C-alpha cells in the first residue's frame, strides 16, 4: 500500500503490467523478430547468390544482373543460378559463392526439379513446391511479409481515419455528430464484397487497390469507440477546467481528451491487424485479391484446396497463418489486460 518510489505515467505503468504478462511479452518479441526477418526476405530466400567469386572477379548477383556469359555460359541472357551448369562453374576450385539460406524466390520456378509438381518436401525444396513448381517455403516467407505489411498499413490508415472522425463526432457532438453518424450508417450498409468484385473486374488487381477499398470501410468500428470515449471524456471536469483556463478546442482535444481516449485504440490494434491479415487471406483465397504472381497466403490455401493430395501446401500455410494470428491475439489480450485500469 506504500506509494511507488518513482512516478510512472499511466502509459508506463500499463507497459510495466504488459511486461509481466509473459505470454503476451514473448509473443510480441517473436512477432517482431519474425517481421524483422521477413523484411530481409531477399537475403534469406532468393534464387541468386548474395556474393559470387568467379575467375578472380567478384559479383553481387543479388543487386545486379549478369548475363550467363560472365560465368562461362553460352547465352547472353540473364543467368539462372539454379542451372546445374552454373552451379558447377561456381563450385570450381578458386571460385566460390554465398547462397541465401533457401535457394528460391517467391516466383522462382525450378526447371531443374527432379520430381513433378507439386513436389513433396525434399532436400531440394524443403517444404515442397506448389503446382507451378514454386518453392512453398519461399512463398510462405514472402507471403507472410505481404500479409503483415498489408495488415500494418490497413490498421494505420483505419486508426488515423477512425480517430479523426470519432474525435470530431465525440467532441463537438450535436449536429456534427448526428450528420456523421447517419453518414456512417449509410456508408456501413454498402455491400463491401460486391464492391470488391466490381472493382476487381474494373481495375488491375493489386495490393494498393485492395488497401484503398478495405480502408474505405475499415475505419468505422474504431471511430465508434473513439466517439464514445470522447463523449465521455469531454464532460469530465478536467475538460471544463481546461476551458476555464482559456484553452482552445484544438488544444483541449490534443492535450486532454485525446490522450485519455486512446486506451481502446491501442487495445484493439493487434486485433484489427489480425482481422486485416485474415481479410487479405480470404480475398486471395477467393481469387479477388492480389495478382497470382504475388506471394500470398490465401493463394497458397486455394492451391492446397485444389491439390488435396499435396498436404504440404495446406499444412504449412495453415500453420503460418494460425501462428501469426495467435501471436497477434496473445499480444492483444496482454495489451487489453495491461490497459485495464481496474486491474493492479
Amino acid at each position, binding site marked *: *500500500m*506504500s*506509494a*511507488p518510489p518513482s*512516478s*510512472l*505515467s*499511466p*502509459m508506463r505503468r500499463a507497459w510495466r503490467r504488459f511486461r509481466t504478462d509473459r505470454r503476451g511479452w514473448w509473443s510480441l518479441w517473436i512477432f517482431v523478430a519474425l517481421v524483422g526477418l521477413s523484411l530481409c526476405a531477399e537475403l534469406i530466400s532468393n534464387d541468386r547468390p548474395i556474393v559470387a567469386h568467379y575467375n578472380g572477379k567478384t559479383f553481387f548477383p543479388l543487386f545486379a544482373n549478369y548475363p550467363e556469359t560472365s560465368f562461362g555460359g553460352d547465352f547472353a541472357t540473364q543467368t539462372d543460378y539454379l542451372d546445374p551448369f552454373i552451379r558447377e562453374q561456381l563450385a570450381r576450385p578458386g571460385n566460390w559463392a554465398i547462397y541465401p539460406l533457401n535457394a528460391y524466390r517467391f516466383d522462382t520456378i525450378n526447371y531443374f526439379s527432379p520430381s513433378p509438381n507439386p513436389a513433396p518436401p525434399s532436400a531440394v525444396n524443403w517444404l515442397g513446391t506448389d503446382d507451378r513448381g514454386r518453392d512453398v517455403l519461399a512463398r510462405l516467407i514472402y507471403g507472410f511479409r505481404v500479409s503483415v505489411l498489408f495488415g500494418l498499413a490497413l490498421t494505420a490508415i483505419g486508426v488515423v481515419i477512425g480517430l479523426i472522425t470519432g474525435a470530431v463526432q465525440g467532441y463537438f457532438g450535436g449536429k456534427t455528430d448526428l450528420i456523421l453518424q447517419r453518414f456512417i450508417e449509410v456508408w456501413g450498409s454498402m455491400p463491401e464484397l460486391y464492391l470488391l468484385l466490381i472493382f476487381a473486374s474494373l481495375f488491375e488487381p493489386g495490393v494498393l487497390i485492395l488497401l484503398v477499398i478495405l480502408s474505405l470501410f475499415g475505419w468505422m468500428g474504431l471511430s465508434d469507440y473513439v466517439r464514445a470515449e470522447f463523449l465521455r471524456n469531454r464532460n*469530465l*471536469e*478536467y475538460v*471544463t*477546467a*481546461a*476551458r*476555464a*483556463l*482559456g*484553452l*482552445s478546442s484544438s*488544444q483541449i482535444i490534443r*492535450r*486532454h481528451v485525446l*490522450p*485519455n481516449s486512446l486506451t481502446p485504440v491501442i487495445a484493439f490494434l493487434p486485433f484489427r491487424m489480425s482481422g486485416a491479415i485474415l481479410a487479405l487471406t480470404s480475398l486471395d483465397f477467393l481469387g479477388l485479391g492480389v495478382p497470382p504472381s504475388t506471394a500470398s497466403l490465401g493463394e497458397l490455401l486455394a492451391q492446397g484446396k485444389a491439390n488435396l493430395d499435396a498436404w504440404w501446401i495446406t499444412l504449412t500455410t495453415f500453420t503460418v497463418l494460425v501462428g501469426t494470428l495467435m501471436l497477434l491475439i496473445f499480444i492483444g489480450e496482454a495489451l487489453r489486460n495491461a490497459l485495464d485500469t481496474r486491474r*493492479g
Partner: protein
Amino acid sequence: MPGASGADDRASDSADRLLELAELSVSFETPTGPFVAVDRVSFEIRRGEKFALVGESGSGKTLTALALLGLAGDARVEGRVTLAGRELSSLSQQQMRGVRGKEIAMIFQEPMTALNPLFSIGDQIGETLMLHEGASRIAARARAVELLELTGVPEPQRRVHSYPHELSGGQRQRAMIAMALACQPALLVADEPTTALDVTIQRQIVELLDDLQRRIGMAVLLISHDLPLVRRFADRVGVMRAGKLVEVAPTEQLFEAPADPYTRRLIDSRPRRSLAPVAADAPELLRGEGVGCRFWFKSGWFGRKPFDAVRDVDLSLARGETLGIVGESGSGKTTLGMTLLRLASGDPSGQIHFGGERLDTLSQSALRPVRRRMQVVFQDPYNSLSPRMTIEQIVGEGVSLHQPELSDTLRRESIVEMLQEVGLDANALSRYPHEFSGGQRQRIAIARAAILRPELMLLDEPTSALDVSVQQQVLELLGALQRRLGLSYLFITHDLAVIRAMAHRVLVMKDGRVVETGETEALFSSPQADYTRQLVSAING
C-alpha cells in the same frame, strides 16, 4: 432523544445481547502482500439499540457491516460474529441467505442503484416475503402496500406499481427501508442512508428510522460519516479509524468527553468561521442582471421543449467577498455558476458584468484572455485532474498559456511556490494525480486555479467529496488564499455548515430562482422565506 433507552446501563446480560462481533478482521490479498482493511474489531449491539459506526472514508466501517452479513466478497474474514446466540461465521453461504433479509436487513447509500430498475417496488418488497416467509403473490402485494404506508410513501396503493425511476430520491430510500423491514428483521444495517439525499429529506428519513425503530423495536446499526446526524440518532457510537475501532461510548459521553484524540479531532473538525470582513468601499467585481440559462429537451419527433435551469437571477459580488450559493440538488446552483463564467452549455440570457466588462456579449475566443481572471474548482477531485498529466503540467498549463513569455525555470519556480502555498512539496512536480489522496488532489486543483492570480474563483462544492477533517483543512486554505490574494469567491454548496463558515453573504436557490439573499448570520438567525426556514431548521435539528 439519546440516552432515553438507558444506553449507559452496563448490566447487559447475554439474553439482551443481539449481535456480538469478536475480533473480526477482513483482509485482501494484494500483489504487495495482505492488506488488512478491518483489524480485530469487537463490539456488541443490544436488542432494540441504535448503534452507530462513524469514521472517514476507507476506515472500514462499511466493510465491517458487509462482513457480518457474509457479503465481503473474496476478502478473507476472520473472527466471530454471533447473532442472538447463533454463530454466523460458521454458517454456510446457503444458511446465511436465510439470515440475510430475514434477521438482518440492510439499506444502502444510493437508493437508485440499490433498487432494480426493471421491477416495480411492490415486486421487490414482495420478493423478500415470498422468499423467506413463503407468502403468496397476493399476500405479498398486500403486505407491500402496508409497508409503504408504514414508511410514509404517499399513495401506497398506487406507488406499489411504480418503478424506481418514477420515485424521488427520498421516496426511493423509503421504499428501500420498506423492503428491509418486510420480514421484521431483528437488526437493520443502514449504510449511509441519507448521504445521497438533500438536507430536508435527510431529516425526514432519520425521523422515519427513529420512529420505526421505536415502533418495531429492532436494533439499528447506522454507518455514517455525518456526526450531527449520529449524535441525533444513536444510543451508542463506535469510532473507526484505518480498520481499527478506536473508541466505543454512549453518544453523549462520546461527544462531550471523547477519550481518544482521534475522536476529538473528528468532533472538532466542524467548519469554523474565520473570515476577513469585506471593506465597505470594495469595488464591485461581478454583477449579474436577470441571468438565466435555458436547456432544450427533445419532445416528440421534431419538437423541443425548453427548460429553464436558472431564471432571472440578480446578484453582485464585491472584491474580496464570498457569496455563498446554496440549494438542494437540481436547484440550478451549479448552472448559475457556470453561466456566470460562460461555461454552461445551455442558452444564456441576461447581462453579466465582470470588472467593468460585459461578459455575455463576448465571443468564446474573445473570452479566452479574460479566462485567466476567473477560475473554477470542482467538487470531485478525482475527475477534475487529467490522469495522464504530471502535476507540473497540470498546474503549469494555464501559466504557459497566459504568460508564454516566462522561461521554463521561472515557470517551474512559480509552480513550486504555488504548490508550497497550498501545502504540497516540490517533489509533487513529476508525479501523477493517482498518487495523491482526495484532499491533496483538491489542493492541486486549487493551485491550478490560484496560480493564475485570478480575481474571481468559482468553488463548486469544493469540499463535498472530502472527509470532515480534510474538509476543514481545505476550507482554511481557501480562507487564507482569499485574505492574501484578495480573491472573490462564488461558493456553491449544499452544506449549510460550510456556507455558514465561509460566506459573507448567501443566496438561496430553489428550482432555478433565488428564494432569498442576505448577510450570512442574519439569514441563518432569522430566515425570511419559508424554504430557507425549512433548510435552516433541518441542520439545526
